[in-house]
């Protein structure tokens, strides 16, 4: 497998993870953790495929997945913003409900053929060396996911509403003083985030992993998405890089499996998950006092270099992430 083909395969397989990472980044930037992702991605994958299969219309499938994702966001928002329950508790319970709902409601459509997002190369641009096969010889979801990454970054860091969004997660009291309806805006962004996660789910069942089955084979991905948001330091671009890294690991696992036929085949697909979490550890370890103490005996220059690397990797969450807001 040559490198361009490998990279193209990674870019082609990334949209589900990418959309989900963007959605969760938006919600968390506004201060709300939607922990239900692992179940929600499964449920929206099932719902998207079911709707597309029943209507024969791909857009109906995506619409259904967006709606289910937003509805789940609404439950998280209702539980944490209006009823002031612990976000982690609500999200965790919702994970389990969504996952089992997907299995139960999806059983009639398991292993049934259905519509798939067509492959749509961009004329002329697809022949551009390297970039062509990578970015312009894919399906519309890939184009949309790349544009969405750039779009979300631009919105967050270059527009006025984006500044307000960041304020919701950092200093809601200050936003409130400036006349922002903090609770309402958090609702809005949690719903938008949930809908984007739903788009990710449907990108699995209508493109990257067409169809539905139990188990669907992507179980655990939602937890990785949550980790990627941390890894990405709540920055859409860095989170997207993490998403590509994870998909690359998954792709490499399949490649390795074909290269080493003697190794048990079921082991490789499980490896990207622990590796991704190890990457996350690297990011968070830099904050810890005991780690700094551990570095102290090293020679000064080396210590400075290690600290610089750790600091560059360091992730710090929005200051008010998961903290309830009391408009007073």
């Amino acid at each position, binding site marked *: 497998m040559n490198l361009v083909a490998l990279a193209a395969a990674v870019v082609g397989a990334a949209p589900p993870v990418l959309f989900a990472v963007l959605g969760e980044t938006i919600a968390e930037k506004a201060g709300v953790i939607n922990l239900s992702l692992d179940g929600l991605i499964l449920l929206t994958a099932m719902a998207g495929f079911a709707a597309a299969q029943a209507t024969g219309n791909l857009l109906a499938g995506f619409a259904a997945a967006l709606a289910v994702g937003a509805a789940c966001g609404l439950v998280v928002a209702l539980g944490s913003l209006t009823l002031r329950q612990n976000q982690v508790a609500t999200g965790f*319970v919702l994970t389990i409900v969504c996952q089992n709902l997907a299995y139960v409601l999806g059983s009639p459509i398991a292993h049934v053929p259905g519509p798939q997002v067509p492959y749509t190369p961009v004329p002329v641009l697809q022949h551009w060396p390297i970039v062509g096969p990578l970015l312009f010889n894919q399906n519309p979801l890939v184009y949309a996911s790349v544009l969405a990454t750039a779009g979300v970054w631009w919105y967050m860091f270059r527009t006025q509403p984006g500044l307000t969004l960041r304020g919701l997660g950092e200093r809601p009291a200050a936003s409130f003083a400036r006349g922002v309806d903090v609770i309402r805006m958090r609702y809005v962004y949690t719903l938008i985030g949930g809908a984007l996660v739903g788009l990710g789910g449907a990108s699995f069942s209508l493109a990257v992993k067409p169809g539905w089955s139990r188990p669907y084979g992507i179980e655990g991905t939602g937890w990785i998405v949550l980790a990627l948001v941390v890894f990405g330091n709540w920055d859409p671009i860095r989170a997207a890089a993490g998403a590509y890294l994870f998909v690359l690991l998954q792709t490499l696992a399949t490649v390795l499996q074909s290269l080493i036929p003697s190794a048990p085949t079921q082991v490789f697909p499980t490896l990207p998950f*622990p590796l991704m979490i190890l990457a996350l550890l690297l990011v968070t370890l830099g904050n810890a006092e005991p780690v700094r103490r551990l570095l102290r005996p090293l020679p000064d220059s080396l210590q400075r270099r290690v600290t610089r690397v750790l600091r560059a990797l360091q992730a710090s969450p929005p200051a008010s992430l998961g903290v309830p807001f009391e408009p007073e």
Partner: protein
Amino acid sequence: MSVAGTSPLRTIATGVLGLVVTAACGAGILSALGASPWEAYRLIAAGAFGSPERISYVLTAWTPLLLCAAGLLLTFAAGVWNIGIEGQVIFGAVFATGLLRALDPGVPAWAGVVLAGLGAMLGGALWGGLAGALRAYGNVNEIFGGLGLNFIAGSLTVYLVLGPWARPGIASTSGTLPFPDRLWLPTFAAPPLVVPGEAILGLVAIGLVAGALRGTQFGLRLKAIGKSSRAAYIRGIPVTRGLLWAFAGCGGLAGLAGYVLVIGAYSRHQLFPLISGGYGFLAILVVLLAGSNALAGILISAFFAAVSTGSLQLPLQMHLDSSISGILEGTLVLLALFMRGMQARLAPGEGDR
């Protein structure tokens, strides 16, 4: 987050309301699938309590829930989320299997069984302690640390079952060679029931934990850390050590659950991938519902075990997915959280008293 403190009558009324609404939600889903909710609920009840044998199966499913819930009482008291509990169950199962493979038939069967139980506790405690250490020393959020350790434990079992511990001749993900019956945990006859011995282990464990939380310095310190780790630190309570012990203790009890899943009286008597079977996560739901009330934890565990066991009849008799139990259990807990929130809003101050 706890039900303790509100009047018992109100707690019961809320519980009944939650059950009714949950049953109604489940009925809606079943009807949407074209199945009769009445028939499905009847099957679940019959599947759980229809015969003495079925009750034994419910008790078998009850035990790992009890053990995990007992462990989670410790971590929740300390105010941390031990999502790594599934991996700790798996590690207990791996340590138990490894010890039994090494010791049997060299040592007497009873000694092997006892040592495997202790080994399983050690394995779970190590894995739990690791999640705690990552959180205490590495600043790694315990949710992600725990999840990562779950994934690693899962990969490890797949590797062991297919690689070094594969059945002679056929390496398949179905599991290792089952242990002979001299290594199974005993049963007790209480006619007409047969009680799996491990159920007693589970009850003793949760009783001990409840006692430790209520009446020992260790328990009081954990609760102080859970209320405010900063305040506890200022008062001179060793916060880091407390957290580590909470994680290790929870891991040890989860490891014991893994041991029970390997050689419990009605278990499969082997190690297989996904051996934790979601018991750890289900126990998190139990403790979210029960709060710090151990008695409520015991009852809710039994109820969840009955629903999960009874639902296994649905695929056989009605071609429905048995995951319906997960929907019912999750919906019940979600409703409970929401009702707590509503009570707090309607009667400010009363909900958190």
